[in-house]
């Protein structure tokens, strides 16, 4: 194996750490290269990048459905070998972007119980676990429904329950709200926030909606061509037009509005609001001041 290309190791103990020199798909396209990425307990990391920047590839490496061509995956600081890599699904749950392919069983309850069954629980325990998970996402009513005839938002909730039921340490959400209507998007966002507050998970979400990232993420990793090109709190990154533009992203709406307003009125960019609440507070302050 080549020496790891990784950045200096993070001080904090990480739940999962990926250190991948390269991953190339059979058609020759590069999925990741020189990727270094860690997830810690209790934090929400937003992985932001344009379509094709490697977000989904990264997430699939996190739970072992893809394997780095060159590089390694560490769980709790230990490098996992091939056998354990196949067990990564126990540590990392993924809520896929396409809920249709995630919900495969004929009824929601069977689907949510599928993971616990694979963990070795008895059918009765698995069902219990599934019901609890559905309750945790506020979707107990869906248990007997047929996934094909649920709305996109209901499917997403059921998919999240399916992952929660396995009690993973890390949960990765691939574009959790992109195709939902606003009401369901808000509900899923609230759910992620709730999980963060519980403090026991490492949460990763891939998104190109920077407004969402600004509202919900403690840390943002910006991806381009399969590498992390910037990493830090939203406020540090989202006022860097050049960085975002280079990554095929557009600054959050709040940032754009604030910047334009400051330009028109000659105001200073400070306090650099990134969420709506901060924006309104900043404006109200100035109005008062």
């Amino acid at each position: 194996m080549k020496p790891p290309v990784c950045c200096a190791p993070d001080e904090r103990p990480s739940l999962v750490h990926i250190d991948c020199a390269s991953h190339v798909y059979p058609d020759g396209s590069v999925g990741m290269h020189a990727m270094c990425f860690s997830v810690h307990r209790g934090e929400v990391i937003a992985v932001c990048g344009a379509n094709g920047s490697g977000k989904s590839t990264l997430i699939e490496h996190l739970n072992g459905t893809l394997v780095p061509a060159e590089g390694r995956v560490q769980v709790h600081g230990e490098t996992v070998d091939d056998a354990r890599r196949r067990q990564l699904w126990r540590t990392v749950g993924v809520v896929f972007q396409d809920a249709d392919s995630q919900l495969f069983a004929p009824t929601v309850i069977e689907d949510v119980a599928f993971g616990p069954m694979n963990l070795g629980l008895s059918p009765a325990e698995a069902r219990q676990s599934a019901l609890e998970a559905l309750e945790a996402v506020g979707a107990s009513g869906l248990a007997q429904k047929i996934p094909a005839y649920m709305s996109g938002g209901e499917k997403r909730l059921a998919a999240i329950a399916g992952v929660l039921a396995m009690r993973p340490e890390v949960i990765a959400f691939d574009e959790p709200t992109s195709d939902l209507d606003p009401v369901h998007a808000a509900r899923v966002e609230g759910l992620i926030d709730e999980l963060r507050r519980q403090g026991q998970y490492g949460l990763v979400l891939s998104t190109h909606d920077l407004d969402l990232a600004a509202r919900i993420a403690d840390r943002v990793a910006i991806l381009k061509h399969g590498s992390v090109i910037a990493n830090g709190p939203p406020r540090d990154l989202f006022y860097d037009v050049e960085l975002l533009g280079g990554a095929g992203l557009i600054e959050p709406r709040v940032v754009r509005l604030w910047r334009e307003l400051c330009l028109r009125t000659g105001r200073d960019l400070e306090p650099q609001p990134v969420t709506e609440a901060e924006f309104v507070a900043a404006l109200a302050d100035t109005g008062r001041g």
Partner: protein
Amino acid sequence: MAHIHLQDGTLPFAWAAFWWALALLLLALCLVRLRRRPLEPGRVTLAAFCTATVFALAQVEIPILGGVHLSLMPLSGILLGPLLGSIVALIANIFSAAVGHGGWSVIGANVLVNATELGTAWAVFRFTAGRVGSVFVRGAGATFLALFAGTLVMIGIVTVSGIQGVALGAEAVAAGLVVLGAVNMAVGAVEAIVTGYLLAYLARVRPDILGERPVARPE
């Protein structure tokens, strides 16, 4: 699953040609009958969908004893009837040959095997309508009988044709094939359950695909 996974060069030339000729004759008859009435676009879509699904599922393979997978031919027969179903069989076999999943020269023989399955499944499923209440039982029964018939035809074709360069007598070859056939039927039982379940599900949730009357959607 009765499906001859023989590669090119396994059957002798004359026999391969003979089965091809027989299959083409059968297909020609199907075409003549099909063309009597213009085909609805929806039927073409369903036929094409069945073809793609048959092929795609054949790629999810349990690689034992010549490759074990669901054939879905009985299902195609039930959904499409034997005429359009035979066309599905032809094209699915062409696709399979194109990826090295069986040879070009055995397509003729395979179409005959598959047509047996399609026809049997369709006939049994139709015959039991109104006589047997459970769609699951009708579907599973039709599928199992169809696969059994297909396996018999397969054993017959290979025994009659012989395998090139094999010194064993026809009886020994047939004995080997019977073992293969038994494995086929074990998988056939699984396919029967799966097909029966699928048909029951369609009858409940999407009767329009089965060509039956629409009902209110169940929750």
